[in-house]
């Protein structure tokens, strides 16, 4: 069967690079192998994330997960625990994880434009103490997914700005997560040496002007 997709020939990565170019050094080097202080703080205030997993047949699946803030727990800088609540028992994510541990996560904090991404390997557990720690509304989690963190990185806020996603949110979670600072200051504070090397003079003042300019003038 021919579908609409067949009308478009795919291009190569080389052609993609011709069009979009290459990232700046600080972007290329932004991935960290573990959760830093600010990444933990970010996840501790997140109410919503999406999890991508791959099935035994190679089919990728991505699903939304919402919970009260802080429901995904940071067990140490290398480990997250994600609660599972009663659902439709289709269990695509569990089917996938038990066949292929790869997991990709993107965390959102209401009111914050930037997002935090975590990729790693996951497995499922029914440890009663952990399920208790992951309780919500007085009820333990049904299952827990433990993620061994392999890479952590923040991503800029253009998508959320374009979507106007958080307009009208009054919960104050952005303020609690950033302590009155902002995503970039906290990210830089966490990785000061690396950021200094890759950002140079931008760190000492003009970075915010550059970001404001990009957020205002380079969204589309």
């Amino acid at each position, binding site marked *: 069967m021919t579908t609409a997709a067949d009308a478009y020939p795919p291009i190569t990565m080389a052609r993609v690079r011709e069009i979009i170019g290459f990232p700046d050094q600080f972007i290329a080097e932004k991935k960290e192998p573990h959760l830093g202080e600010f990444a*933990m703080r970010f996840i501790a205030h997140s109410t919503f994330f999406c999890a991508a997993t791959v099935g035994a047949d190679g089919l990728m699946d991505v699903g939304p997960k919402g919970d009260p*803030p802080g429901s995904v*727990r940071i067990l140490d800088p290398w480990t997250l625990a994600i609660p599972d609540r009663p659902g439709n028992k289709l269990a695509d994510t569990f089917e996938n994880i038990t066949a292929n541990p790869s997991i990709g996560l993107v965390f959102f904090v209401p009111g914050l434009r930037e997002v935090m991404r975590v990729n790693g390997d996951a497995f499922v557990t029914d440890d009663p103490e952990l399920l208790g720690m992951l309780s919500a509304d007085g009820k333990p989690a049904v299952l827990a997914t433990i993620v061994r963190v392999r890479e952590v990185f923040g991503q800029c806020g253009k998508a959320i700005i374009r979507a106007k996603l958080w307009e009208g949110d009054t919960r104050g979670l952005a*303020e609690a997560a950033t302590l009155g600072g902002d995503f970039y200051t906290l990210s830089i504070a966490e990785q000061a040496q690396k950021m200094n090397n890759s950002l140079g003079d931008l760190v000492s003042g003009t970075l915010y002007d550059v970001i404001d300019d990009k957020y205002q003038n380079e969204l589309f």
Partner: protein
Amino acid sequence: MTPNAGTAGKLDVAVRQLRWEADGVVSLDLADPTGKPLPSWEPGAHIDLVLPNGLERQYSLCGPPGERAYYRIGVRRERASRGGSEYVHAFLRPGQRISIKGPRNNFAFHPAKSYVFVAGGIGITPILPMVRAAAARGADWRLYFGGRTSASMPFLDELRGYGDRVRCHSSDTTGRIPLTELERPVEAGAKVYACGPASLLSDLDTAAANWPAEALRLERFKAPQAAPAENKPIEVECAASKKTVSVAADESIVSALEKAGIRPLTSCRSGICGSCETKVLDGVPDHRDGILSASEQAAGDRMFVCVSRARTPRLVLDL
């Protein structure tokens, strides 16, 4: 100055100080962001801490009695934390704004000629202002303070100032609190205030068998685990709102009331904080809270609807 009024029973406060007190314990000083005095309180009072992650947790006020410029609480990090103490330890920072409810007092400190205080671990927090108040009144008192290790026992520096009225017992050095010393009846008119883990309080309850009734007052971390008695469905008549609500065997009175649109004030939902205290007009409550003493339970004129149920098929409440 008018006190901080907050909104909907909540007070907005800023974390003025976060201080390491002992292994696994920090103290927090919470103040009105604009410097207004906080509501007055008495020893034994607690507040509900409303954290940015939405959790509400109860902590005893442990600063100097009557201090209204700030409230001090002590928080132990629980190993299997459900997110309350972990948030305080890992994420709360000086300057951060949070909300509190209260103060409320389920552990009132009454005048007496002499006092015995018994505290286990972080259970020292409600006792600390009582110790200060007793010392200020010139009462005769002594404190037995126990902990797993001396390094994990908070506020020792403060307590050392009281000399040999304070007896510290840590399991790793001097052993546990010698409760046998307490088995002989305390003198008439003496009061015993105790707070600590369930095992300490139940041992103390046993040791107190020969004491005059009402000499012993306990503050628990958790409501005593009721024997898994099979819950029966009950009918709750709400006299003020003229509604009768059926409570199924597997739901609490408060959640059935909420479904029917009646919303009593609640916070801990585990029979500890006292927010949902409700007058009982008819019927016999089945008390499952950790607040009321045996005689208060027997009076049957008030109950905590988050955990308690009924011995009669029907309850009439002042709601």
